[in-house]
């Protein structure tokens, strides 16, 4: 029986046990949630670029963005057949709201509802991107309004309920002490311990790192690599990916007319263009003869940012990309969003079942502990049994132990261990350090080698206690990979 089935069966048992109590809807929801797309929350400090990243991932301008603090209500974006927005007021029935799109962004009419009374909004939108994951946009922490900031905590680390998110993208601008506290709050649970398995760090607004220099993105990549190696970061997120959200969002929605407008600047003599691009104010105010209104220019800046405008013009001038299609591809590439998608798919989507089960089991564990009734110990015991014995969970536990620095050994050995149990992604070739398209015999050979190696390590009396325990998990991972190959044959 696979993990998801085991989870379902224990859920069923719990449902029978709690039939007729007020907890039935909660259990029903847990069951439904198992089959829904993965819920990914986007969290971070104020103005980290959460809504922008969400738009970039959906490749549409859905979430409103602004220079001031913008998102104040937790908003869910999920796939559906119709376009609709639902408000969930505190202590009342959900109600549908009217909305319109303002320059793409969804403007919701709260229809007299006070924003502080609304726990969350749900935006249902037919979208390919939302089919694999439901995205949750959160207000920033460090907000000047304590109430707004509190909402993100409420969502990610609720006091008395399970967290509604299965995984989280955490946006960091530069490392801030508060960021880590926030992540810890999210991970402070029995099964996970401080656990990086369901979080990815994103160095956001990567285009701003060098304050406009064209090598900003390269700089951001270096910084992200450095951050990802920091022990404090490692124990809370799997990795750190640099993303220039604004570039990605704009690339996904680039229009021909915007390109035509920027071409006018690119066609200027170099010196004049340079002088115009010296500052945002100059770009908006100088050279009225250019044939662009200041409103058009402001719109361009809002869409591309100073970095984006300079980058596009430099690319046009050097003929790297000239058409809207070429530019969109080039911008997408430089924004880092494709890398993020890859990382998301290997670290989250391929592990969907585990993350889903994990959420459900956590919720069950909490329910049986806080609302015990006769027979609930048996359910609790079964939950515990799954958590302790299911191999994917053992992997996650060892993974977090490595991340926390509790498993020690030769660096290359620990690195191999981490990869083998899925630290870089759950796919078999990734675990074995092989290219994604490696053929079966190569994979089988590598898995066999790894198995033998880790069996030796597990039995070696000189291997440390912690590493030996971890080695046994690695052995099981290798066996699992070999078994899967066998089945395919």
């Amino acid at each position, binding site marked *: 029986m696979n993990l998801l089935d085991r989870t379902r069966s224990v859920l069923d048992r719990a449902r029978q046990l709690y039939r007729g109590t007020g907890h039935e809807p909660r259990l029903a929801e847990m069951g439904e949630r198992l089959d829904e797309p993965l819920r990914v929350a986007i969290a971070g*400090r*104020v*103005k980290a670029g959460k809504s922008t990243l969400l738009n970039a991932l959906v490749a549409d301008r859905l979430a409103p963005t602004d*220079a*001031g*603090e913008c998102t104040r209500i937790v908003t869910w974006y999920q796939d559906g057949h119709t376009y609709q927005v639902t408000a969930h007021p505190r202590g009342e029935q959900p109600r549908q709201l009217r909305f319109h799109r303002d320059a793409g962004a969804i403007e919701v009419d709260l229809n007299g509802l006070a924003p502080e009374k609304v726990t969350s909004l749900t935006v249902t939108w037919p979208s390919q991107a939302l089919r694999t994951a439901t995205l949750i946009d959160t207000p920033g922490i*460090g*907000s*000047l309004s*304590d109430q707004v900031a509190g909402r993100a905590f409420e969502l990610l680390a609720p006091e008395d309920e399970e967290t509604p998110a299965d995984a989280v993208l955490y946006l960091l601008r*530069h*490392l*801030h*002490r*508060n960021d*880590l*506290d926030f992540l*810890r709050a999210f991970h*402070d649970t029995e099964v996970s*311990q*401080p656990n990086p398995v369901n979080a990815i760090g994103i160095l956001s*607004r990567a285009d*701003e*790192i*060098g*304050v*406009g220099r064209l090598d*900003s993105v390269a*700089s*951001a990549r*270096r*910084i992200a690599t*450095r*951050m990802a190696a*920091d022990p*404090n970061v490692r124990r809370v997120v799997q990795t750190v990916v640099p993303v220039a959200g604004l570039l990605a969002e704009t690339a996904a929605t680039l229009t021909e007319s915007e390109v035509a407008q920027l071409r006018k600047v690119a066609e200027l003599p170099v010196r004049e263009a340079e002088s115009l691009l*010296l*500052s*945002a*104010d*100059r*770009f*908006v105010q100088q050279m009225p003869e250019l044939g662009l209104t200041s409103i058009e220019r402001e719109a361009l*800046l*809002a869409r591309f*940012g*100073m*970095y984006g405008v300079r980058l596009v013009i430099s690319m046009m001038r050097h003929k790297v990309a000239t058409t809207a299609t070429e530019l969109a591809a080039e911008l997408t590439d430089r924004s880092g969003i494709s890398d993020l998608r890859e990382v998301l798919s290997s670290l989250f989507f391929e592990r969907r079942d585990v993350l889903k089960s994990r959420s459900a089991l956590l919720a069950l564990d909490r329910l049986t502990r806080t609302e015990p009734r006769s027979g609930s110990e048996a359910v609790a015991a079964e939950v*515990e049994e799954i958590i*302790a014995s299911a191999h994917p969970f053992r992997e996650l*536990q*060892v993974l*977090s*132990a490595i991340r*926390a620095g*509790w*498993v020690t050994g030769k660096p290359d050995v620990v690195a191999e261990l981490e990869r083998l149990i899925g630290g870089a992604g759950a796919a078999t070739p990734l675990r074995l350090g092989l290219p994604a398209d490696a053929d079966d015999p190569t994979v089988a050979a590598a898995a066999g080698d790894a198995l033998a190696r880790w069996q030796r390590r597990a039995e070696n009396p000189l291997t440390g*206690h*912690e590493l030996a*325990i971890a080695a046994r998990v690695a052995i099981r991972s290798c066996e699992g990979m070999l078994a899967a190959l066998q089945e395919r044959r």
Partner: protein
Amino acid sequence: MTVAPQSTNQNPITQAAAVVDLGLSACEAYGRDDLAGRLAAAKRSLTDPSVHIVVVGEFKQGKSSLVNALVGAKVCPVDDDVATALPTYLRHGDEPAAELIFEGDPPRREPVELKDIERWIVEDDPTPRTTGVVSAPATVREEQPRPAGVEVRLPRRLLAGGLVLVDTPGVGGLGSAHSTASLAASSMADALLFVTDASQELTRSELDFLAQARQMCPTVVCVQTKTDFYPAWRKVRDLNQAHLTAAGTDIPIIPVSSTLRSRAVAANDTDLNNESGFPELISFIRDRVRGDATTRLASEAAAGVVAVAEQIISQFESEKAALADPAAAQQVVAQLTQVKERVEALKSAAARWSQTLSDGIADLTSDVEHDLKNRIREVIAEADRAMEDTDPADTWAEMQSWLESTVAGEMLANYTLLRDRATALSEQVGQHFQEASGEVLRQFPVFNPTPLAGSVDVDHNIDLEKMKVGKQAMVALKSAYGGAIMFVMIGLMTGITLGPIALGIGVIMGRKGLRDEKKKQVAARQQQAKNAVRRYCDQVSFVMGKDSRDTLRRIQRELRDHYTALAEELNRSNAEALRSATEATKSTQAERDKRIKDLDAELTRLRQLKQRAEAVTAG
């Protein structure tokens, strides 16, 4: 001695210097070298007024770029990732030069090539300071101690006139121990430039920091950087202005672009310079910051002259009284003789001011110590409570940073108590002295503490040399304690560590079946953690306690010396008056008339001097 008509629209420093010079020649003319000493000290600080502007802010907000753009030279290293790790002091010098400053008393200085300073200023290891712990020195530098700062001298007009710009390390999370240290430093500064970039509104922690800094420092300005890069900077500025107003502060916001300014300086482009917003910032620094500081210095120096003039005037007036009416002369002599005894009493240890001082210091010492103990005890209790419910294995890292920043905050509060109480004590002692001296010689007004004396010889760091509050206690505080506090704190953060907590693999691999075993391990770790917290707090109390005691002793010494010297001056003035009055009784009518005429002329000059000095005092 002549008094030139005063010109009104001169620099206050020049005016004050002229008045002080006149006062000095008066002292010389009347043979009062004791009074001259005081004025000489005031003159020294006038010729080298130091005005400290401290640049603070979060990580990566463009502090170093701002400083570079201000002086039009690339002095402070700027990088996308690594950040400033050492405070850099920029001051005026005829030739560019740099020195490393090492901790010590007095601080040790070591010349260094200007081009090499980068290697000292930036962090060795660009790992983020997540817990407020300053990264350990790299191996290359392990043979020698790490400098506490870098001083750079540059021939720049902006810096001439005593301006010192201090670029500080990013506080790495305002609200951390490090930011508390920055706050302590800001209490010693004449002005604070708080740097925040235009990418977003002020955050909660930034706003909290600003509100606190506003109470510690007389002039705070919020500099919004990178306006060239963020199109919406006006909107962000307006939002910030609203936040600042809502927080009840009057802190102005000056938006600037360091990039534009640097280009403008390189290309000598006035328009671009105006676009950069720097002219406004510079005139703010020149007029408000330096203006305020120099006005204060000038008025303090002039107040010294007023006091000196008054002493001599009253001496001459007694003599004149004795000369004018021979019948009353005996009485004047008798009075002055009586006064002499009282002045002697004023000098003695039994005098009330002296009692007040020694009792006050003794009380203060025990109060400050008690306060610190109390604070630390509460921290420990809170830490214990927090640890009851958690497993230190999970929370130790947070615990460490919490503890560091809480302890730093308590230290600052304790230091503020010491500062405020010491200032109050100084005022009380001054008052008692004034009362006693007023009683004995109503005609001699006593000039309350010369704030400038005694401080010029201490050349420590940003805080020490010149001060903003005109109180003797502040002088002592700043040189003895305040100067140290930033370093004490940083020293504590690096020197005293909590150390790791040993972990068993049980934590991570433990099944719930092993709950009892797990509980035992947790309890052991909790005990270990509690002990570590206690050890840390003990060391902090020890260092801090010694520091406070030393400071208070120093304050006591400075105040005692100051008032004893003042009593000595009074004594001398009185003796002179007595001598001249006695002579007056013996002289002939003709001699008397001549002397009275002379005295009248001198008195007119002295009164003019006093008036002129008062004009400077009034600013």
